[in-house]
């Protein structure tokens, strides 16, 4: 049993670090694809996937690569910008400094200190890739730090829980934004140059281009992409893998509380088995968009129920 507020801080620390990492991948994909596809459309979809498109429109009139990148990375108008995520991660880390190992703290604090040195030039097209690499270094260092240094007590399982719930939510969002590209009916011209790039852009946003190749060994096909990101247990950013991890975390925590379980355990178990036994054909049949919308809602509800059960 740990302090409820500590569980909450660790959970959100991990969520913000994971969110930052996903943003970096998303922006990277937008930038590398923007040369091939419509710039505006690519950046617009990145803003939508990050859930800040409406906010963006209140600040800017048009979508330009420079303003979109700045907005996603560092804008004070955007509370989910990369730099804001890092700030919030550090606030949570500092609030429960003692619940973190020194390596974890240093990963967050070092990243935060470095972020204070960044100026606007770090987010120009020319330097953006380097800056995004830096972001991923921080999140990787953090993940490595907690995996290698944390005691396997409740603290650890709440950090993992935050990581994977955030990841499940993010992957569902990225797929949802791109879902119209994935409708099989419209992809009669499989293998076309443009389609290839579009599907590849989805894979790129979750760093899965190579993974796709290893799993399918064929050209990029929409249902394969959807299956990889939804149902494949070996794909580390898939919903299936995320929910496998979420249920493990919740089971471990329940075991430490004498087996006591609640609504959060039920939701996580239901979603996990749906992903485990689901088939991609059926999902397309009943509507991919509907499926993903439901996934995003379930993730939000699961977050609320975890808070209700453990953090009050």
């Amino acid at each position, binding site marked *: 049993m740990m*302090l409820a507020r*500590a*569980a909450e801080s660790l959970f959100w620390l991990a969520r913000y670090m994971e969110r930052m990492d996903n943003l970096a991948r998303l922006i990277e994909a937008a930038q590398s694809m923007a040369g091939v596809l419509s710039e505006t459309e690519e950046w617009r979809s990145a803003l939508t996937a990050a859930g800040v498109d409406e906010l963006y429109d209140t600040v800017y009139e048009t979508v330009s690569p420079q303003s979109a990148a700045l907005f996603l990375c560092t804008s004070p108008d955007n509370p989910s910008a990369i730099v804001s995520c890092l700030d919030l991660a550090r606030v949570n880390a*500092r609030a429960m*400094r003692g*619940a973190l190992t020194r390596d974890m703290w240093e990963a967050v*604090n070092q990243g935060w*200190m470095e972020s204070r040195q960044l100026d606007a030039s770090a987010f120009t097209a020319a330097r953006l890739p380097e800056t995004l690499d830096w972001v991923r270094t921080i999140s990787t260092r953090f993940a490595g730090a907690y995996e290698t240094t944390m005691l396997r007590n409740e603290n650890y399982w709440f950090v993992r829980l935050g990581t994977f719930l955030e990841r499940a939510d993010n992957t569902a969002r990225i797929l949802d934004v791109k879902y119209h590209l994935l409708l099989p009916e419209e992809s009669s011209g499989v293998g076309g140059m443009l389609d290839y790039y579009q599907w590849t852009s989805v894979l790129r946003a979750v760093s899965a281009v190579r993974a796709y190749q290893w799993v399918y060994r064929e050209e990029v096909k929409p249902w394969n992409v959807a299956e990889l990101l939804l149902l494949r247990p070996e794909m580390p950013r898939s919903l299936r893998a995320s929910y496998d991890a979420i249920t493990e975390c919740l089971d471990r925590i329940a075991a430490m509380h004498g087996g006591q379980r609640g609504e959060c355990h039920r939701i996580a178990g239901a979603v996990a088995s749906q992903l485990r036994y689901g088939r991609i054909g059926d999902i397309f049949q009943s509507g991919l968009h509907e499926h993903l919308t439901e996934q995003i809602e379930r993730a939000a509800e699961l977050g609320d129920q975890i808070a209700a059960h453990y*953090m009050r």
Partner: protein
Amino acid sequence: MRQFFDDMHGTDGDIRAAYAEIATWLAQTPPDTLNAKREEAERLFRRIGITFAVYTEGGDTERLIPFDIIPRILDADEWAFLERGLKQRVNALNLFLADVYGAREIVRAGKLTNEQIDGHPAYCVQMQGVMPPGGVYTHVAGIDLVRTGVNDFYVLEDNCRTPSGVSYMLENRSVMMRLFPELFARIGVEPVARYPQDLLRTLQSVAPLADDEPCVVVLTPGQFNSAYYEHSFLADEMGVELVEGIDLVVREKKVYMRTTGGLKRVHVIYRRIDDDFLDPMVFRADSALGAFGLMEAYRAGNVALANAPGAGIADDKAIYMHVPEMIRFYLGEEPILNNVPTWDCANDGALAYVLDHLEELVVKEARGSGGYGMLVGPHSTKKTRDAFAKKLRENPSAYVAQPTLALSTCPTFVADGTAPRHVDLRPFVLSGADSVRIVPGGLTRVALSEGSLVVNSSQGGGTKDTWVLHTRQNGAK
């Protein structure tokens, strides 16, 4: 020109034995190397986030306390002497507090008056007649010492409430060991790392009866407090929870914390918030930092608070002058450590003397801390003295005065090389129901500007690692 005792060179300029190795090392190490090490130390401190908050400044509120890489060294005999004196003094302070809140023998003996006690701002009426577990009031005391000669140590101030700085003592050592492992291989230095375990044992020793292992927590005002780093550091090093007021609830005079598995009983609270904020039911009603009903639980003996509420009456600067008498009264011993002669300006004769000698005295607020609002006579101008004299006449009882001590200096790394700077020493004395523990050394604070005697971090002071040498020190191995 005033002659100061220098920790390394004494008064005659010869290197003292304890510093022999360090002097050689300093002479042989090029300034560039020292400078690189100093920068590395600063990077390390930033990385671990050992910062303190400065309230009066805008912008970046997290700052580092400057760290000096040249250690301050005490030999085994000097430390043995200080240790005996510290234990004696803190024992007397705890007995004094038990007496103040108990039988008041000291009043009956005519050494203090009831008015001096009851009228004191740090006197806590809710503590009258309450006997804390083990009779311990000030579990963690920070005693500020200065040196003026080879055998002359003075207690400048007792800190019996929530003294801070011990995290610097520990982090300074770990940074030094990382930067200069070869020095530790050559010079036998007493370790300080057991402090958190000592602290935990001290806290556990005063726990009320528990079915299993007593639950100890550290209570912090939160991450915006200037000493937050230390609070989280100590909780982590002891392996106990760091809680805030919102995490605590009191039910039927028992204290619990909110955990992921519901409420869990708390037995000992190492609180790093002031008395006023402990319990809105008893003290400040607008405080959200403590827990409602905490004092009831405490008075019922269901939870221990360290340090005890009201312990501050023992460290007041007007009470300070009576400590030697307390030692004689409670222990029947002669004080081992010197007190600095003190004039209590509440006393008419003393006030007249102080006003006549402002130029040579240090005048402090009796209730102040942190080096704010004090006058250092020899470093003052006529204008500041006149302004201070006016304040003194208006409210004499708020001030005490002491002679300006010739604080010892210690070689310190400054912009243009190595130069002597004034230092003090704050050892941390742990009093449990079972025994008194002190890790060898403490926190050395150093006044970084030339000639300055004010070592407080809020006034531009820095810190040094403090080395106590092993008993059998025989130079190079």
